[in-house]
C-alpha cells in the first residue's frame, strides 16, 4: 500500500523564487490498484509520481510504502527501493539513445551482476512480452516513438516491480499507439501490479479497469 500523508513539496528555483508544487495532500493507493492522476501541466501530478518513486523528498509530510517510510530514506537506500519496487515509465522515456534496445532494458539489472544465462532468458521474455525482440540490437535513437515507449515499458518491467509509475505515457504517441499502451496497462494490472498514471489524455478517463481517477489542481487533490 502507498500512503501520502500531509505532503507539501516546495521547489526552490532560487533564493527569491519558490514554487509550491504540492500543498498538504493526502492519498492512499491500495496494492493492485490502478490510479489515474488527471490535471493540466504544472498541476503537480509528476511531483506525486516522483515522491512515490523516491526520486525526490517532500518538504514536509510522509510517503509510506508497505509500512516503510520512504521519504526519509538515505540516497543509497532510496536507489535500492526503486530498483526492487519501482518501474518508472517517463514522459520522454529517458532511454539512453546511444545504447541498443537490449542494453537499455538491461540497465536496472546491471548493479545486481546477474548470472548470464538467467539474465538472457529474462531479457528475451521481457522483449517478447512487449513485442520489441526483433529490434533488440537496434540503437534506441533509431526507433520510432511507439517502439521507444515499448523499450521504456520493458525496462520498467524487467526488475519485476510491484509498483509501475507512468508519467504522461501517451504524450508523444498517436491514438493507435496510445490505445495499444492502454492494453499493456490492462495486462500489467491483471498481473497484480500497483499502477499510478499521471496524464491529461482523455483516453484514460472512464476506463473500466481504472480503480480511481483523481484530479490534481494547483498542487491539491480534487476529489
Amino acid at each position, binding site marked *: 500500500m502507498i500512503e501520502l500523508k500531509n505532503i507539501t513539496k516546495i521547489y526552490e528555483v532560487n533564493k527569491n523564487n519558490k514554487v509550491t508544487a504540492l500543498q498538504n495532500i493526502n492519498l492512499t493507493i491500495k496494492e493492485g490498484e490502478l490510479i489515474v492522476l488527471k490535471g493540466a501541466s504544472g498541476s503537480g501530478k509528476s511531483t506525486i509520481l*516522483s515522491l512515490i*518513486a523516491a*526520486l*525526490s*523528498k517532500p518538504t514536509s509530510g510522509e510517503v509510506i510504502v508497505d509500512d516503510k517510510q520512504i521519504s526519509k530514506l538515505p*540516497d*543509497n537506500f532510496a*536507489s*535500492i527501493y*526503486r*530498483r*526492487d519496487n*519501482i518501474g*518508472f515509465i*517517463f514522459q520522454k522515456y*529517458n*532511454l*539512453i539513445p*546511444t*545504447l541498443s534496445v537490449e*542494453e537499455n532494458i*538491461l*540497465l*536496472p*539489472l*546491471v*548493479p545486481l*551482476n*546477474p*548470472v548470464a544465462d538467467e539474465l538472457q532468458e529474462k531479457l528475451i521474455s521481457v522483449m517478447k512480452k512487449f513485442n520489441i525482440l526483433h529490434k533488440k540490437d537496434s540503437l534506441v535513437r533509431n526507433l520510432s516513438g511507439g517502439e521507444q515507449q515499448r523499450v521504456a515499458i520493458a*525496462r520498467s518491467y524487467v*526488475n519485476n516491480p510491484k509498483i509501475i509509475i507512468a508519467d504522461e505515457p501517451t504524450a508523444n504517441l498517436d491514438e493507435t499507439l496510445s490505445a495499444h499502451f492502454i492494453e499493456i496497462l490492462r495486462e500489467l494490472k491483471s498481473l497484480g501490479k500497483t499502477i499510478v498514471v499521471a496524464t491529461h489524455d482523455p483516453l484514460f478517463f472512464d476506463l473500466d479497469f481504472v480503480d480511481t481517477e483523481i484530479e490534481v489542481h494547483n498542487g491539491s487533490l480534487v476529489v
Partner: protein
Amino acid sequence: MKNKINIYLIEYAVNAILRQKYKSIFIIIVFTLLTFLLTSIFFITNSIRYELDSTVEALPEIVVQKIKAGRHYDIDVDDIDNILAIAGVSDAVARVWGYYYFENAGVNFSVVGVDSFEEQYKGSLTNIVDKFDLNSENSSMVVGVGVKETMTRNYYKSYFNFIKPDGRLEKVDIAGVFDGDTQLESNDMIVMSKKTAREIFDIPQNKATDIVVKVANQEEVQTIASKIKLLYPDTRIVTSQDLKISYQNIFDYKSGIFLALFIISLFTFFIIIYDKSSGLSSEEKREIGILKAIGWKVDDVLKEKFYESFIISFFSYTLGITLSFAYVYLLQAPILQNIFVGYSQLKTSFELPFVFDFQTLFLVFFLSVPIYIAATIIPSWKVATLEADEVIR
C-alpha cells in the same frame, strides 16, 4: 552464484567510451602524448645522467695543464719527475691527446696517444693496449663505434688520412673497433701510439698535452693539487672533483630546459584535468540521473565512472610508456636528444644506454592516472548525490 567482478558494469564502461568515440580518441591522444613526453624526458635524463656519472668515475684524480696567458700549452715531460717526488703521488703519466676536426663529416674526434710499456691511467685503455699492437712499424689505431661509422660513411674503411699541421697526410690503419666504459666518452675516441699522435698534432718528444697524476689516498687529492700548484705556478690543476662539478653544471643547465618542457606538459595536462573536473555536459548529467532513477546507487555510478576513466587513462599511460621506450631506446630520441647533446654538430653521435627505472614509471603513473580518475569521478559524484528528479528535470 554471482561473479565478484561485475562484468556488466565493465561492459557498460567500455560501451560508454565507445559511444563517445571522438571525445575518447581526443583524450587518449592528449593523454598518450603527455605520458610519452614526460616519460621520454625522464628516460633521456636517466640515460645521460648514467653516462655522465660513468664518465666522471673514469676521470683521473688530477690533471696538470700548462697555462700561458690563460691559454693551454704543451707541458714538459720532465716535470713528471718532480711531481712523482711529491709524497702521496703513486704515479704520473704524460698524456698526448687532442681533438681532430674531420671537416668532411663536420665532427670532432678525440685522439688519444698511448704507449704499451706505460701503465695506463684508465682501465679501458689498458684493455686496448693489451689487445692491439699499436706500436708496430705501421701506424695503426683503434676507433670508437661512432668514429668507425663516420669514417665508413666517408669511404675510409680500413685506414684514415689525418692532415697534419704542416699540410702533409698521415695515413693510419684501422686496427679495430672498441666499446669503452661509456658511449658518451668512447664513441668519438681514437686510440693510437703516442708517436703517431705526436705526428698528427705536431707535439715534440719532450712535450705532452698534460700530465695525469694518480693519488694513493683520495683524501689527499686537494693537498697534492696545492703542492703541484706551488711547484709549478704556471699550471692549471684540475681535480676529478672540479670536473665532476663542471659536468654537473652543464648537466643541470640542460636539465633546466627539460624541466621547462616537463612543466609545460604538466601544465597542459592540468588544464585538461581542470576542464574535466569543472563539470559534466548536460548529456552526461542526464545519463547519471537516469541511472539513479532506475535504481543505480551512487557507488554503482562511481564504480562505472572509475572503470571508464581507468580504462582510458591506463591504456593511454601504457601506450605512452611503450612509445617512449621505442622513441628513446630504439630511435635514440631524435630532436629531444639534441637538446642535451647540443654540440652534436661537432661530436659524433652516441647511443643512449638502456637504464630501466621503476621510479620513473611510478612517478609518471601517479602524476597522470589517479589525477585523471579523480577528475572524472569527482564531478560525477557531485551529480550522483543530487536528487535524481532534479538531475532529470
